[in-house]
Structure formats: C-alpha cells, structure tokens
C-alpha cells in the first residue's frame, strides 16, 4: 500500500486513532512518518545589506524568492545576520531580526496621495500630479519670500518660509543630493534627526578632541578593562554593539551602570547604581575631584597631550554659577575671556611645571573642588559607597597598562547641559590617558543607521559637508572673510593643525555645487550659497511655524509629530502650514496629524487647511547606497527587491522635483533663479541621479590634470581622487564631502570591501571604508607616548618605527613626523592637544558646571541657588509659559527606548508589535503603593504641556531617591507608540517634555522634566 503523507494524514484523520492502533499492532507499512521541514533558502537569491535601524550597522543577508532569473519577481522572504560582518558576526537584535515585517508592513506607502485642505481622507494621485503640484507650491512660496540680500547688501540667498527635515536613515547618496537641492533653493530652516539625538556629542567631542565622532569602534570595546555605562543603555538600544562589552566582560572587564533605573544593561553588569536624571555633571565632576585628590592621573599623558599646562587669560573667572562675560539681558556669554594667554608670536603660553595659578590644571582643580563625594550623593541620590567604587574603578585605569571606556548615548545628550555632560567624561578620559587607546575613548553610540553620515554631510541648519560651516551673514559676508575665520593658525609650534587646509575643502565643495559656473573670478560661486542669520534648528523652526511664519514643510523620512518635544505645540504648528510634503516608506503620524484619534490626537480635520502630500519612497532593501555607522564606517548595501506599488527612491523624488522646479524657473524666472539655474546637475538621468554617481562625487575627482611642483602628473583629468590629501584650492578638484574622500577611488568602491581579516585587537581595515582616510581609531597617535613608544605593549595601534608611524591602524597623524618635531596627537586642534579647558568652543562654559534641568524637582541649585538652570539656555516666550513647577508636577519624567522597538517605526512591524505591543510607563513600587496603582493598571501621566495614558509596569528597578533632603520619584516613559501602527494604538509620549534644548545644539531635554501621575 503506497500512501502519500497527505493521504495518510487524511486516512488517519478519518479514524482518529487508526494510525496509532494499526502501527501499534504492526499492521502499518514502514512509510516515513517523520520528515524535517525542508530548508527554505537552498537556491534563494542572497543579497547583502546593512540594517536600517541603529548605528551599529549590522550586516544583513536578504533572501528573495526566485534565484535571480528575469521571470521571477524577487520578493524578500527572509532576512538574517551576515556572519562575515566584523561587528555583528551574524547577530541581529529584535528589530533587525524582524526586518522582514518592516519591508512587508501593511503600512508601507504604495502610491502618491494628497489630503486636500479641510478634508478627512487621502486621495490617490499620479506621480506627475504630485510633482507638479508640489513644485508649484514651492515656487509660489519661494518667489514670495526669497531674501536675496540682507539690509547691509550682503547676498544671503535664503528662503525661510519653507523648511525641510532630512532623514538620518537615508543613504549618504540621498543625503548629499538633498544638501545640494536644499542649498540651491536657499533652504536653511532644516534639520535632521541628529538634532534630537547626538547634536551635543558633536559639539562636546569636537570641542575636546577636534572631531565630533565616536572615538573608537564597536569591536574595540572588547579591549577595555573597565566599562562605564552612563547616559546610555546599550543593551537596550545597541544590543549587537553591546556584544563587545560582553566579550570584554568575558575576558575579565568590569561593567558598571549608572542610570535612573535598573535597565537591561544593568541586568548583565557587575554593578548598578541609581542616579537622579539630570544630575550627571555632579557625578562626573565628583569623579574629577576624586581623581585629582587621590592622584589617579596619567601624568605623562596629561602633560604631553592635553592643555593642562596652558595658561588661561587673566579675565577668566567663575563665581556663583556664572563664568566671566555673562550678559544677563541677552542671556548669553561674551566668550572672549575664555581663552589662552598668547605670546608675541600668537602662540599659547604654557607652564610645564603646572605651578602657574592660571594654568588649566589649577583652574580645573579649583573648579571641581566643590564636587565632594557628599555633594555628589546629596544631589544625585547615588549612594556614596557606590560612587566611590566607580571612582576607584576609573582611577585604576590611570596607569598606562589599564584602559577604561565609556558607553553613552542620549541619556547624556538630551539635557539643557547635554554637551557639557559629555565634555565632563571627555575630560576624565584625558586625565586617565584613555583617549587614542584601544579599549578606551569616549564612545558615543549614535542612533539612526546613518545619523553619523547625515552629520558628516552637513544636513543641519548651519552646516556644510565635512564639518565646514555654512556661511554666516555677519561673520562671513564674503569668501575672504569665510576663509580667514575658518582657517585657524596653530597655537603651538610644529602642529599639523589640519583645518589649515580649509580653502582646499571649501573650493572643492563649491566646485561640486556650481560646476563650471564656479570660477576664481566669482569666488567659486560663494555668494550663491545661502547665508544664515541664526540657527534654524528644529525647535527654532517649529517656533516659527507655531507663530505662523512658515508656509511649507518638506519632511523626508522623519516623523516630527512623534519625535519632537511638546507634541501639542507641534500639532498646532502643523495646522498653520499651507502645504506639507512627506516623503517616507511608511505611514507616519506627521502625515496624518489632521486625523482625529480621540484623546490621543483630538483635532478637527475640517478646521485644518494644510494641504498634505504623501510620497512613497523605497526602504533600505530596495536601493543601493552607503550608510555610516557609529564608528564611521561607510558601508555599501545592495538592492534586494523592487519597492511596493509606485514607491520610488528618494534620489528620484528629489531629482524629479528639482527638474520640475528648474523648468519653472527657466520658463518663468523669479527671485533667486540664478542659484537654481547655476547649480551643477550633471547626472546621466537628471530626474534620477544614481547612487554610484553621487558616491563618486562625494569622493571627488580631478577636474584637470593635477601635477606636483616639478610638473609630474599625479592625477589625470576625470580621475577619482585617492583621498583628501589630493584636494586643491585652485578649482582643479571637486569633492562633495572632503572627509569621505577615499571612499570611491580609481580602485573602485571602497565602501563595498568585505575583507574581514582581523589584523590585531579586532581591527578589520579591509572591511568597508572608514573616514577619515580609513583610520579606525581616532587620535591613535596618543596610543604611544611622547617618544612614540606604545604606552601598553599589549595595546599597540601605531608606533614610531624610526622613520615613520606604522602599525595595525592608519596613523591619525602625519605619517613621517618624528616624535621630536613636537607635533601632538590631536591634529584637528590648533593646539595639537586635547582640551581639558574648552576655551571658547562651547557657549555655556569652558568647564562643565552643574545646572538643574529646566523643570527641576528641587526648585533650586544647592551649588549656587541664584543660578538654578543653565544661564545660556535659549528659551522662547511660548515655551516659558509651558513650563511646570515641582509643587504641581512632583515627579521626574524621563523618556527612552525599549529594545523591542526602534523609535516610531517598528510599531508598523508586526514581529516587533508582538514582542512589545502596548504603551506602558515604569513606576517604582513605593510610588505605586502611594498612588494605589497595581501592575497592569491604566495610568495618566501629565505635564504642564499634555498627557498620556498607558499601562503601569510596577517595578523594583525604579527606586525613590533621597536628594537634597527630599524624596524624588522618577517615572520611566518608553516612547514608541502612536496611531499609525499594527501594535495597540497609543499616545505620543512627546506630549510631555518641553521644547527646550541643549545650550549648544538645541537637542531637546527629553531626559528630565516634571510630571504628575494618577490612576486613570
């Protein structure tokens, strides 16, 4: 009897127990009753990509239906980790593991749609209609509001009444094209997710070390002896990067977590200690004080490689919470006294003996003497013995052969003192000699998959690619003043002072913008660039929108309604717009802000006259391109399938829009037409520039033959540049982003390299390509002492071989500068050394000082009661009115992510919705008992600005703290919910925090604000 398995099943189903009985009686044939489920990938097409969520940048293998044959429609059916990837090694976190449901989300956009003013529905339209209508809106608004010149007659070419947000998960190629598109139109009211994320990192790290990026790499974390996790929760937000912290631990490292709540990182740490949200500088200032008092300093490093010995200007002072130069009326500092004393040659004076009372070291010592362990405990709520244990752990790394690192993220950035939080730790790491060392550094764990790239490409209000500044109308009215102000002179003899090359970077950038229209005679088209009067960051532009000063809003891969603080203000602001254009792969709350969703979004569509366009774009899986991970690796990814419906790549959407606008200006003219018509747009298909073309432009090429002084041809016209050292300031080279130069050379696409050979200490220089110049660990010159000998023979990155610097990493240094030349490791700083004293680089002080959050649970600052909050905060009148006080809102609220979700995307992803389906807040057991709240109850959390309702998670992991004599309760508020979702609908958590930002970068204070709590 031959039965197929299916037939057999039917037979046995007919007589329920027949199979059992017959087999037991030996009546049944021996046909197989067991078969392993068939392996489903055997001949599926495999494509390599990079995860689109966070900046760990994990490698993906995407499998699609069909083997690649033309007649098979590639449909991605499975995604798993790429085992070859040096960081992820095959792992993916719950977001990455669920990417399949992102690609196939029912909330993917398929067709262009419009919501007509006052209506309550989306209407499908053609791409042609969408582009024509959007272009017409843009031209009308630009024609009406373009400012060609300011009152002083300086060409400013700016258009302020339409703003644009750009996408930190889009590719570099989309990013650089967006930069070109926006600046040609004159848009400076622009921002990217970097603003709500790691803005303060860039400010703080650049002010200390010269570059604003994570210093070391994910894999390098394994080389640490001690890991402090503070201001971040990497197990939760960067699980795969955290792999390397666990590897360090397996080799004996200790991990300590300092956080308002016992989190997932704490679950695997050696020790957890609580801290009051918003008191980090007290804690870290206390560490500085302890290190000095206990002489746990790596003196040789400090004396040689920091500005400890530099003598500070006599006018500098600090008293009663204020640094010298404060202008109370303006709420701003005049920073001129925060500077070094210079000699007659313009060089900074130093005192190698550290005895001068005004040398940086002595000023720093005096500044932090106030931060005693008792003060720390009193203001942070951290137990004193626990605090002292952290000090001791850090202190142990002051020797040359022990290295500690810090992992932090938004727990430090999202404060009014965000940049200064990070600065404090950067100073500690310099004092301990942990910068430039394998296993050391200040590791800023970036957020979005390409937030580093978007920062590198200058997609911020006042930036240009490669950390060049966009011209300011007062400081840089003409090209000469721009170069003069942005080309620093060395402050010590013999320093590399790399920014002395600014003219080469800038001229090459202008040649990219304006092509043949950029000539020496017209200063390379400098005047066509928009010039800023003030920074139009996200908070500033929302304030303008709220005041009715903004007509248009273009939103590219961003969900500001959910992401920005004070959602009710954001929503009111959107309703004042004439038109909004949302380019996204998914439905977003931003695009549907006009829909009523009950208490969660109580609006009347009929009263909202904003015309909203929703344009479907591709996602990562449906495009080629590169993204930059947190440790600056530019990783190329490949397309695995076609997008759904009529969705298009961002480059094509921008291309079509630009071509349409250019046509309008060609046909009709208009104010500022020249900045559009003069723009270089040399793409094979102008309506769809390709990723390859754009990537090659970022690298740059020779525009004419390049010769050395003897006349020998180094590069022929049209050849890709080998790196930024080849850039010229005479118009013979073009490069859209100088720091990326080297990414696509004559040898091909370096970003697609896949050699994962570990050349030592986990360094894999053959994998992808890292800016700058494929250097993997920044400031690696500092891994050797002043004489060029490695501090630690087990941690050798580069050393002086007698004629050059060499080792397992590309020297972050002049390769042939001998130690006796006195050149120092921090080559981007004119001083050549790391800054303990930040001079005038930050707006709120050269030394970090503790200021309370804008909404303080104490209502005072015991360190200086007259100056409670930061004196350098920018506070709009409308936001001041929306601040709450501790008597009405007694609890500290702090928002954060959960590992199951990525921002506001994965609520559209079924697998992640299953893993964490419903909005909740975390409440300590004591507070819950006081309020009669049980786990699973629905509670209402409110601030002066709005409220949310969520389930209560009552936990031992959040404890009440004793601070300044009173009990402070903290409430944890995960942020992932909304109404565009396949999870349970929820409230926007950002109804709660205030729209007030970090003094230096305006990153909002999401991490410490005041709320009330009640059972709903």
């Amino acid at each position, binding site marked *: 009897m031959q039965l197929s398995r299916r037939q057999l099943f039917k037979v046995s189903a007919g007589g329920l127990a027949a199979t059992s009985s017959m*087999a037991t009686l030996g009546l049944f044939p021996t046909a*197989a009753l067991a078969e392993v489920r068939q392996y489903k990938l055997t001949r599926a097409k495999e494509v390599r990509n990079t995860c689109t969520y966070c900046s760990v940048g994990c490698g993906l293998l995407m499998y699609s239906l069909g083997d690649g044959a033309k007649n098979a429609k590639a449909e991605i059916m499975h995604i798993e980790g790429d085992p070859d990837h040096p960081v992820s090694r095959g792992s993916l976190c719950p977001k990455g593991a669920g990417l399949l449901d992102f690609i196939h989300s029912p909330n993917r956009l398929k067709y262009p749609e419009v919501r007509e003013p006052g209506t309550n529905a989306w209407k499908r339209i053609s791409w042609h209609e969408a582009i024509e209508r959007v272009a017409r809106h843009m031209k009308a608004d630009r024609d009406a509001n373009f400012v060609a010149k300011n009152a002083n007659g300086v060409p400013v070419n700016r258009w302020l009444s339409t703003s644009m947000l750009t996408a930190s998960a889009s590719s570099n190629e989309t990013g650089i094209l967006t930069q070109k598109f926006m600046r040609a139109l004159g848009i400076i009211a622009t921002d990217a997710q970097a603003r709500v994320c790691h803005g303060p990192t860039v400010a703080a790290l650049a002010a200390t070390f010269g570059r604003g990026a994570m210093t070391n790499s994910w894999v390098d974390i394994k080389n640490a002896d001690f890991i402090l996790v503070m201001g971040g929760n990497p197990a939760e937000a960067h*699980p795969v990067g*955290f792999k390397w912290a666990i590897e360090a*631990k397996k080799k004996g490292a200790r991990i300590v977590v300092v956080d308002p709540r016992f989190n997932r990182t704490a679950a695997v740490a050696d020790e957890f200690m609580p801290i009051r949200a918003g008191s980090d500088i007290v804690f870290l200032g206390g560490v500085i004080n302890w290190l000095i008092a206990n002489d746990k300093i790596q003196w040789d490093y400090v004396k040689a490689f920091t500005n400890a010995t530099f003598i500070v200007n006599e006018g500098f002072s600090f008293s009663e919470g204020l640094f010298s130069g404060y202008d109370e009326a303006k709420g701003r500092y005049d920073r001129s006294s925060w500077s070094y004393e210079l000699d007659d040659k313009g060089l900074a004076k130093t005192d190698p003996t550290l005895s001068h009372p005004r040398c940086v070291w002595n000023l720093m010592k005096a500044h932090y003497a106030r931060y005693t362990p008792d003060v720390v405990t009193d203001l942070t709520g951290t137990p004193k013995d626990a605090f002292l244990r952290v000090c001791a752990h850090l202190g142990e790394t002051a020797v040359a052969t022990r290295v500690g690192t810090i992992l932090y993220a938004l727990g430090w950035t999202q404060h009014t003192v965000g940049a200064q939080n990070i600065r404090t730790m950067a100073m500690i790491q310099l004092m301990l000699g942990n910068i430039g060392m394998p296993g050391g550094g200040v590791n800023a764990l970036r957020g979005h998959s390409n937030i580093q790239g978007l920062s590198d490409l200058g997609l911020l209000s006042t930036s240009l690619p490669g950390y060049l500044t966009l011209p300011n109308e007062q400081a840089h009215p003409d090209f000469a003043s721009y170069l003069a102000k942005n080309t620093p002179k060395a402050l010590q003899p013999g320093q590399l002072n790399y920014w002395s090359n600014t003219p080469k970077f800038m001229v090459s950038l202008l040649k990219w913008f304006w092509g043949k229209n950029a000539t020496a005679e017209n200063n390379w088209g400098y005047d066509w660039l928009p010039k800023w009067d003030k920074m139009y960051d996200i908070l500033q532009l929302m304030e303008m929108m709220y005041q009715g000063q903004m007509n248009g809003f273009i939103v590219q891969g961003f969900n500001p309604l959910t992401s920005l603080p004070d959602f009710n203000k954001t929503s009111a602001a959107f309703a004042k717009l004439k038109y909004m254009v949302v380019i996204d792969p998914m439905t977003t709350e931003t695009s549907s802000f006009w829909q009523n969703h009950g208490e969660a979004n109580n609006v009347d569509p009929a009263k909202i006259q904003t015309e909203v366009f929703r344009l479907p774009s591709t996602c990562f899986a449906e495009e080629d391109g590169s993204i930059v991970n947190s440790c600056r690796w530019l990783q190329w990814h490949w397309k695995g399938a076609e997008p759904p419906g009529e969705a298009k790549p961002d480059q094509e959407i921008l291309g079509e829009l630009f071509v349409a606008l250019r046509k309008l200006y060609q046909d009709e003219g208009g104010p500022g037409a020249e900045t559009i018509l003069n723009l270089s747009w040399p793409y094979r298909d102008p309506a769809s520039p390709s990723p390859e073309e754009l990537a090659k432009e970022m690298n740059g090429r020779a525009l004419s033959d390049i010769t050395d002084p003897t006349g020998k041809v180094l590069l022929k016209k049209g050849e890709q540049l080998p790196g930024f050292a080849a850039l010229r300031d005479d118009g013979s080279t073009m490069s859209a982003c100088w720091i990326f130069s080297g990414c696509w050379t004559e040898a091909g696409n370096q970003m697609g390299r896949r050699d994962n050979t570990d050349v030592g200490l986990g360094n894999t220089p053959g994998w992808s390509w890292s800016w700058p110049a494929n250097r993997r660990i920044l400031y690696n010159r500092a891994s050797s002492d002043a004489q060029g000998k490695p501090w630690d023979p087990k941690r050798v990155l580069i050393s002086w071989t007698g004629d050059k610097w060499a080792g397992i990493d590309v020297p972050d240094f002049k390769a042939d500068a001998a130690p006796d030349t006195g050149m120092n490791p921090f080559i981007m700083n004119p001083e050549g050394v790391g800054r303990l004293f930040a001079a005038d680089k930050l707006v709120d002080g050269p030394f970090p000082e503790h200021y309370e959050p804008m909404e303080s649970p104490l209502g005072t600052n015991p360190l200086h009661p007259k100056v409670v909050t930061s004196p350098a905060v920018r506070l709009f009148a409308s936001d001041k009115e929306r601040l709450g006080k501790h008597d009405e809102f007694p609890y500290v609220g702090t928002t954060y992510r959960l590992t199951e979700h990525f921002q506001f995307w994965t609520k559209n992803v079924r697998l992640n919705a299953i893993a964490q389906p419903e909005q909740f807040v975390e409440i300590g057991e004591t507070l819950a008992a006081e309020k009669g709240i049980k786990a699973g109850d629905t509670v209402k959390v409110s601030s002066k600005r709005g409220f949310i309702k969520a389930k209560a998670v009552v936990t031992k992991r959040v404890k009440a703290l004793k601070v300044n004599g009173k009990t402070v309760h903290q409430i944890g508020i995960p942020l992932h919910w909304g109404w565009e979702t396949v999870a349970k609908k929820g409230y926007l958590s950002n109804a709660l925090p205030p729209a007030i930002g970090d003094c230096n970068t305006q990153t909002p204070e999401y991490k410490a604000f005041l709320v009330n709590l009640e059972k709903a």
Partner: protein
Amino acid sequence: MALQSLDIMRRSASPTPAPEARSPMEVAKLIDVTTCIGCKACQVACSEWNDLREDVGSCVGVYDNPIDLSPQAWTVMRFEETEENGKLEWLIRKDGCMHCSDPGCLKACPSPGAIIQYKNGIVDFHQENCIGCGYCVSGCPFNIPRISAQDNKAYKCSLCSDRVAVGQEPACVKTCPTGAIQFGSKEDMKEVAETRIADLKQRGYDNAGLYDPEAVGGTHVMYVLHHADKPNLYSGLPKDPQISPVVKLWKGMLKPVATLGIAAAGLFGFFHYITAGPNRADEDHDEGAQQ
C-alpha cells in the same frame, strides 16, 4: 524518505527500531542567563524563521510578551525581579523546549510519528501525525507544548531542525546579540558553560552552575545560572523536573490495555471510512465560519 540528514533515535508510539549504524553528534543549545539582556531577538528570529505570527497582545504590567508560549510563539523571555543577597537582580530566562534526552512528551504520545527524537538530541513535533490528544502537554516536565485552537495540533520549538539538518545553527542562536545563546556539540557546550561558571564564581556567584537535569536524562537545551541552587528564581524553572508518574504508568503497565481499546476504536474508524467515506464536517464548518 528524507531522513538522510537526521537519523531518528525514537519515534512516538512506534515499536519499529531506529537505524543504529550511524552515530551523529549530539548537539546542544546553551543559554547563558547571566549574559542575556532579554532583548527578545531570539523570539523574533524564531517567529521569522518558522513563519509564525502570534496575535498582537497587550501589556499586563510586565516586560514579558507574548505573555506565554503558544502554537505561534515557540520561545518567550520570562522576566523576574529578585533581591538575592540584598542585591537587585533582573533574571531573564529564555523559555522553550529543553529537548530532553528522555522526552516525557514522546513517551506520552500515542500517535505514531507525531514526536520524533533524532540521534543528535533534537525532539521534533510532526504536526501531520499529531492527533491533538494533549498527552505531550501532560508528559512534559517543563510545560512547553501548546495545542493550537486552530488545528488542534501540538506545537513547540523544533531547535530549527531544518537548519541543523543542513549544517546551520538554530535561528535564535545565530541572532543572539550578546552570545548568550550558543550552539554546538553537547560536549563543547558543557565546556563553554564551565568557563562561564568559573567567571561567575570569580565575580562572587558561588552557586553558579549548569542546568542539565538528570531526571530527564539531561537536556539538549541547557542553562548557565548564577543561582543554580535555586532554579525556581528563574520564573519557575523546576529544580527537579520529573516526567509525570501517570505517563510512566501509561508507558509501563497500562499501554497494552489501552492499545487494545485504541485498536478497537481505530478499526471502527477505518471501517467507517471505507463504508461512509471521509468525515467532511470540519470543512463545512470552515465554510460556515467564513460566511
């Protein structure tokens, strides 16, 4: 057919002896609870690979979700807050099939070929042969199998037998961000566990140890625990898992008796099929439900 890649050791309710000639390696999954961050990547990867989608649930006041194992959720993370030795600990355990050497489910199963134990140690459910009687549920000392209300069949973790069959590690193992889940020969996994336990002891966890309970002949999913003396702390992991005495009784004394009864029922069913044709009730019911 198709048994080349995985030799069978035991098959439920089947006296036919398994082929003995080859001796494939015994495999194991090691879950190091002490480096688990509870990120649920394993949960998601499991569902993705096995094409499972549980319904979107709700928050009941804890991190756990889905709140329990189900036919659509073959592994779940269980979170427990404890204060051991005055120190707060968040113990997070990935729960799922332990792939016992002496599987209670297989012993209890009356349906031939519904539960298979491969020589490499994997215990696999073959839903084609499952009759939905639920004996596996009562036979399991770890409360793992779940019967689907949709098709009345039992489901649980297969240790990705389809992946292991072609030489790959299970989906949960591959994806685990911190390396808390590892896969290899059982011997290798025990060695890895030893290293981890030594590290834990050095950090003050004097009772750190391996969970590989003998009462079920050892398991092919093992845990490294900080408090191996108190497995109950980890969301009720049994200290001494035992196959229910009822199952033992069933296998020992009662089975021949029961077999006769089942045989009678089976013969009745068989003749019913021959004379009256297959029972269509289910399909009619389905159509009705769709309307």
